[in-house]
């Protein structure tokens, strides 16, 4: 780990993001320590994916700052390509490169960005494919892999860059239910190895068991945050309670219950 214990791995301060007139993030403050696993939960449209995408500048914040390992990435003079090398990102739709084999997917950025030689890149790629349990799929093209396998290759692709922080944007939301477990298993292992992780997810059992901290967002603000057991087990706010009720037992929800009261 390159970050020191003094600087947080990720530090978001007064973050605002608007798309035209739509204000998606309305002042977010969030700090993630090195080695910490933070799960961000909340209803769709709450801004949690946008928050994650601001952390590696896939979205440009309208206001506020994001620091990664102490470096301000929202500074206009920041070398964003260099900073992104240290931040792994896993997408809901995997976004594997379909014209490359699994091995080449994991190798290409090592070769073109880190300038590792072929042998070294290949060794690191195979190591990371083994880490996600797909050593035998190195030569397969994405179209031949299941969703769960594709997502694990995507995780290996990010890990091969030796990131200090891993961002996961609803990594299991596009998967068939029986494939979710494999991906969560890989993420649980990563968390066990001390990786700093920010995970936007709807998987409450993962949040409860793996996260050090759970952040509940709604309407572009953080409504509450705290240890997983408390936020998921005994939420303090009514909005959190209603959201968790609907997520944990979707069949019990009343029609119109979750409609915003209007603010």
């Amino acid at each position, binding site marked *: 780990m390159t970050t020191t214990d003094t600087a947080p791995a990720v530090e978001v301060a007064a973050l605002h993001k608007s798309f035209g007139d739509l204000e998606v993030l309305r002042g977010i403050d969030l700090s993630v320590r090195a080695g910490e696993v933070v799960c961000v939960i909340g209803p769709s449209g709450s801004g949690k994916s946008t928050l994650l995408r601001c952390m*590696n500048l896939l979205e440009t914040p309208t206001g506020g700052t994001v620091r990664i390992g102490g470096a301000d990435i929202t500074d206009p003079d920041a070398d964003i390509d260099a900073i992104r090398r240290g*931040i*792994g990102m896993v997408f809901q739709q995997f976004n594997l490169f379909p014209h490359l084999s699994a091995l080449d997917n994991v190798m*290409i950025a090592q070769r073109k*960005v880190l300038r590792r030689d072929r042998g070294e890149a290949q060794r690191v790629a195979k190591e990371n494919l083994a880490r996600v349990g797909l050593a035998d799929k190195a030569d397969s093209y994405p179209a031949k892999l299941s969703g769960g396998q594709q997502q694990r290759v*995507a995780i290996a692709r*990010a890990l091969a860059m030796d990131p200090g922080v891993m961002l996961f944007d609803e990594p299991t939301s596009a998967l068939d239910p029986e494939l979710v477990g494999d991906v969560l298993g890989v993420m649980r292992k990563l968390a066990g190895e001390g990786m700093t992780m920010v995970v936007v997810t709807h998987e409450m059992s993962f949040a409860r068991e793996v996260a050090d901290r759970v952040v509940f967002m709604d309407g572009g603000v953080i409504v509450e945050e705290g240890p997983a057991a408390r936020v998921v087990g005994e939420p303090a706010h009514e909005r959190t309670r209603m959201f968790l009720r609907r997520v944990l037992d979707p069949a019990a929800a009343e029609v119109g219950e979750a409609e915003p009261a209007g603010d």
Partner: protein
Amino acid sequence: MSPRRRRRIILAGEYTLFVVAVLAAALLADWGTLRDNFADGDVAAKLFPDIITVGLRNTVLYTLTGFAIGLVLGMVIALMRLSSAAPYRWVALAYIEVFRGIPALLVFIFMGPGFSIAFPDREIPGGVFGQAAVALGLVSAAYMAETIRAGIQAVPTGQAEAARSLGMSHGRAMRSIVIPQALRIVIPPLTNELVLLFKDSSLALFLGVVLSQRELTKFANDLANQQANSTPYLIAALCYLLITIPLGFLVRRLEARQNRGRR
């Protein structure tokens, strides 16, 4: 009358009409004159082997060179069209509108006689070959630019995002991830463009008189005039079909393969 019976009667009527039309054509046509004018064995014999070794060879040469020029220029214009700097977009759009909006024949004539009127002390290298290749390249670049642009835009944005999140610069992401996928998408339409160019190369009929630089159409036209017989046109047509029909077949195969490859 039952619908089933009606359908049968209509179908029988269609078949009858077809047979009558074929019989009428067979009986009324003056087959002797047609054969003498279009399929005169003696005239045909005089065409070979020059119609292949000079005519067809030059047609293929002009087309392939024109295609290569058009592909490189078209790629540059497509990238200009997608540039974030507005003047590049304007220039690219103007080029596309101009060369799609004027007749290809006008471009050919300008490249040949027009060029020497405009610039008396300069000339396009390669004589008819150079003029035809440049004219074909200029015209096809406009069409190919639009095809390539559409191909680049057909690559999902998640691909560029994944590449950028791995630390690739915009240019690197385009070269290693987006353009290779875009080219795969545009192979069938570009092959179609090649077929169109192949036929447009006949516009070189209006350029120069050097015997060894005649392409199929001029070759056939000269011999038809010389022999006062239309057989050369028929042979030239067959030569074009010899190339365009297999290419058309290839395009359909490529398209079918691409549709199968998508999940």
